[in-house]
């Protein structure tokens, strides 16, 4: 029999010995990091720092920037209003076919955004399943409007929020909800006054993720909303367009989106990067 002390010290040696990485793993790992970092470095190297201010001050660019921020924020708001209750239903009730529900909610995460755009068109377009009757009855039409941008972004981004909030709800200690029930709170009151405050960090993280995804949305937007300056041309569309005519402007806009992405990462740092 070895003493626990001897065992512990041997275990530590094994851990120490594991710090050496074999070349067969090290080489691909380094190449992988390089592949991921190099494009971003290239972007930074080529940024026209001196003319950056004037490039971003151009009315077309500022218009795209404002449209992006407004539509991504609206998409996040809609996602919160619909997604948080949806996450609660998925996490707290025993609805039949809940597995199917989760799969359906997750599909937009993996669906090519262009396909999402086509699907939205078929549903809400002027001849769409819902859009057709709606147009006939009221004359309201979604495609190629700012509303369509918001709808496309919501479609693509809401699953991020739902998954994040559902995870937070599952991780939350449900006994607090029992405590609330014994203090006279029905399920709605319990949700509002106990559950929601407890999972607020998860909701915030989901909202940030959702907003970042909406801001970068390209495929579904250009398919369903088109590419009209001022109404549907968001930042990613502006970048794509500028690359063909004015590369320097494209680089400047890309820098803005890169900075936003890094900012998102920093906001979520405590939740994801610190988790080891």
């Amino acid at each position, binding site marked *: 029999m070895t003493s626990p002390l001897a065992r512990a010290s041997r275990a530590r040696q094994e851990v120490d010995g594991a710090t050496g990485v074999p070349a067969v793993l090290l080489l691909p790992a380094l190449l992988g990091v390089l592949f991921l970092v190099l494009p971003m470095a290239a972007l930074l190297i080529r940024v026209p720092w001196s003319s950056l201010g004037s490039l971003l001050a151009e009315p077309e660019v500022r218009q795209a920037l404002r449209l992006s921020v407004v539509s991504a924020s609206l998409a996040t708001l809609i996602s919160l209003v619909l997604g948080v209750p949806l996450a609660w239903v998925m996490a707290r009730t025993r609805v039949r076919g809940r597995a199917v529900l989760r799969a359906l909610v997750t599909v937009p995460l993996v669906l090519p955004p262009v396909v999402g755009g086509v699907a939205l068109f078929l549903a809400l377009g002027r001849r769409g399943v819902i859009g057709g009757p709606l147009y006939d009855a009221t004359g309201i039409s979604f495609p190629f409007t700012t509303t369509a941008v918001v709808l496309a972004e919501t479609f693509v981004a809401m699953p991020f929020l739902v998954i994040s909030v559902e995870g937070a709800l599952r991780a939350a200690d449900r006994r607090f909800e*029992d405590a*609330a029930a014994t203090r006279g709170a029905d399920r709605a009151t319990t949700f509002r006054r106990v559950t929601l*405050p407890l999972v607020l960090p998860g909701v915030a993280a989901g909202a940030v993720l959702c907003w970042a995804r909406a801001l970068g949305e390209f495929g579904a937007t250009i398919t369903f909303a088109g590419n009209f300056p001022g109404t549907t041309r968001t930042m990613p569309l502006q970048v794509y367009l500028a690359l063909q005519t004015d590369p320097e402007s494209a680089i400047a806009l890309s820098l803005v989106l890169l900075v936003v992405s890094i900012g998102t990462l920093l906001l979520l740092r405590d939740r994801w990067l610190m988790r080891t």
Partner: protein
Amino acid sequence: MSLAAHVYVHRGPLLVDLHLTVDPGRIVALLGPNGAGKSTVLRVLAGLTPPDGGRIVLDGVVLDDPVADVRVAPHDRPVGMVFQDHLLFPHLTTVDNVAFGLRTRGMSRSAAREQARHWVERMGLADHAAAKPRALSGGQSQRVALARALAGQPRLLLLDEPLSALDARTKLDVRAELRRHLAGYDGATVLVTHDPVDAMALADQLVVVERGRIVQEGLPVDVARRPRTDYVARLVGLSLLTGTAEGRSVVLDTGAAVHLGEPAHGAVFVAIRPSSVALYRRPPGGSPRNVWPARVVGVTPYGETLRIDLDGPVPLTADVTPEAAAELQLVHGAEVWAVVKASEIAAYPA
């Protein structure tokens, strides 16, 4: 007006099936090992776990009767509960935790705060009224939990291991405090604990639960003096034997004979206090009536003394000083003689 409950509920493989009656102002302790179903009983009484049968009546109002399809939702029951880890809402201050139940029952925010403040002062927590739960000590958070449960005058108070989250030192103070606060409460109280000392100190009536059933109930002092199961006997530090008495002698189920100070008849429990067992290396001289050979099967420190578990025709537990243990060389497997005076042995009907 009181609690009259027949709790009947399946929890996995365990069937909990027991009757409880608690008068107003009285405290009943459910005592039992982990997994006996004690907490399940509390959850059923609180309405958090729907029962599979039985009937729960509080102050004449039926709260649960599955057969008649009656079920009052947990938030509509006049019940307060103190949970094992207290479960104070972490995002609310002391006052708001206490005010929570008043607000949900329709009181305005300011009136609820006012009344909650009154409770907080009564619990001696005025200095911590604006503190969040994580800034409170174990004893303080226990008092907040109690105030939260009592605010709004519930007719039934449920305490689930209220002292188990506390360290040994604060536990003594908090237990005394809890006793004082409970004395001022006029509703029925059901307390769940696996600590016999808590149960004895706080309860008017003891209900011992094992595997979902009541195995013994009565006044704490009676249960302690006359345990009816091994579990209770071990809890109160007695060795419990069963046998058949005929006058002053008992034939144990193991076949060994025990001599009593007082006569008894029929099936009996025989309880022997560890401190009344004397150990010898050789059969002692003189003429003691109860002398049994025994083998040491366990030696554990117990306060100032050592607790010696003995196997043989009469399985016993003995308390000896460390000096005596060294002198007698009481190691695992040692052969000794156990001696108990007849007058030190209690026998009571099984």
